[in-house]
């Protein structure tokens, strides 16, 4: 019974979302606010369960060092009390510092060394040539080739020199990569709608065969 009611309610809510295509209206606004409220509730509930499981429970068992992260966490809320709002910077700095450390340890091996290594291919076939030149020119385009106004000066100085060749090769590779990324993004966005139509015209109005 609860599931049947829920299914029809879901259908109504999806239609309320679609109604936004015509114009913003009450049904859409209510649905949107209901969703934001749930999302915030979810954040509180899951945040609390993390705090309890990783902080409070072990603290009760005698792991007093956990007072440090718990106090830092509470200090995040100092931002709402002006005289102490600067204290909210402590946990923020802690999170940023730790995240920076985690990021460096993550990217060195997997993203930098392994990827540079994987690009060192023998130039014995077209694919390898495209891979090596494409990677190198993209990297050069981002790191070494001036763009915008600066580029015009360089262009004038170099004419059709090696700089321009690398710039254009890098640009072509990036454009092809971005174009294909766009194609995949389209694919994703369309499937969101297909899934909702499958639900509406499969479960609510049974027109789609199983």
């Amino acid at each position, binding site marked *: 019974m609860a599931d049947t009611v829920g299914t029809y309610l879901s259908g109504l809510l999806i239609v309320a979302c679609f109604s936004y*295509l015509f114009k913003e209206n009450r049904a859409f606004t209510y649905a949107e606010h209901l969703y934001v409220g749930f*999302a915030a509730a*979810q*954040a509180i509930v*899951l*945040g609390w*369960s*993390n705090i309890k*499981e*990783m902080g409070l429970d072990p603290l009760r068992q005698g792991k007093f060092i956990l007072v440090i992260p718990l106090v830092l966490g509470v200090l995040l809320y100092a931002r709402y009390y002006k005289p102490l709002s600067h204290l909210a910077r402590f946990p923020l700095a802690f999170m940023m510092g*730790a*995240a920076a450390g*985690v*990021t460096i*340890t*993550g*990217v060195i*091996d*997997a*993203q930098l060394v*392994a*990827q540079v*290594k*994987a690009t060192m291919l023998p130039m014995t076939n077209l694919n390898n040539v495209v*891979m090596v030149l494409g990677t190198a020119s993209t990297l050069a385009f981002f790191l070494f080739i001036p763009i915008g106004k600066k580029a015009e000066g360089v262009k004038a100085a170099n004419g059709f020199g090696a700089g321009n060749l690398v710039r254009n090769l890098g640009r072509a590779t990036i454009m092809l*990569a971005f174009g*294909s*990324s766009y194609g*995949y*993004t*389209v*694919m*994703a966005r*369309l*499937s*969101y*709608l*297909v*899934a*909702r*139509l*499958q639900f509406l*015209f*499969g479960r609510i109005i049974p*027109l*789609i*065969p199983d």
Partner: protein
Amino acid sequence: MSSPWYERLQSIPKPAIYATLILVFLVPLIRPMGLPLLMSENTRKAYEYIDALPEGSIVFHSIAFNPAVDAENWPQMLALVRHYMKNGLKIIFYPTMQEGGMYAERIRSTYAAEYGYEYGEDYVILPFKAGGESAIAGLKDFWSFMPSDVDGTPLKDLPLFQGFTDMRDVDVIVPCTGSSDGLFYVSHLNAAYGTPIIMAGTAPVLPFIGPFLASGQVKGAIIGLSGAAEYEILAGVPGQATGAMDAQSMGHLLIVGLVLIGNLGFLYGKRVNGKNGQNGRRS
């Protein structure tokens, strides 16, 4: 005076486009056209890798998606999980997005029974952890980071974790993701322990993981709704992705058709009006 045809080609009204899109989807959904389904190399590699795992192997299935993208990720996850269960693999679910746990609960409440899977023995759901990349890096010190399951039961009391030392005991990690977050597993766990990674991602994820597939850091990938449909067929498990592929095909055709129509008008207008050809921003 009405505008010339090449300008009208560039200014089809939005409502007409929206209505056509719905129609283009609905017709093949209601009356399937039986268009051919392609089989990508990435999906085949993913399937073959998982299919070759011996019974009892441990799959670490990370759930890093939310309802915004579950149209792609949920059919992928369902096809994968049914394949794990069909082959008797042990599953550890780990949500790294707030909503992830709810999808694991769906497996517990509905799908685990299909294959007689017992909670605690055949599969376990870990709790969501905040922190993004840190919540994945933290897995390297597994027991201090993850003392209990989603119900609060200590992991050491669950049969699946008897003899489990750390993430090195995991045979494959499968991040099911709507973003490139899955790459954090490559950065922290594949890099540290060499644990194989199979990625299940939404379509826009593929371009980002391409370099990691080519380098062998990611062994295979199930991408988008088409990847889910391919996996359903390869694994021989039921699912809703296959039925959606005709509609997906027609949607792509519509967009390409619209781009071509717009450009026809634009290029002809440019020829007639010189450089100031209508750029199609009017609607």
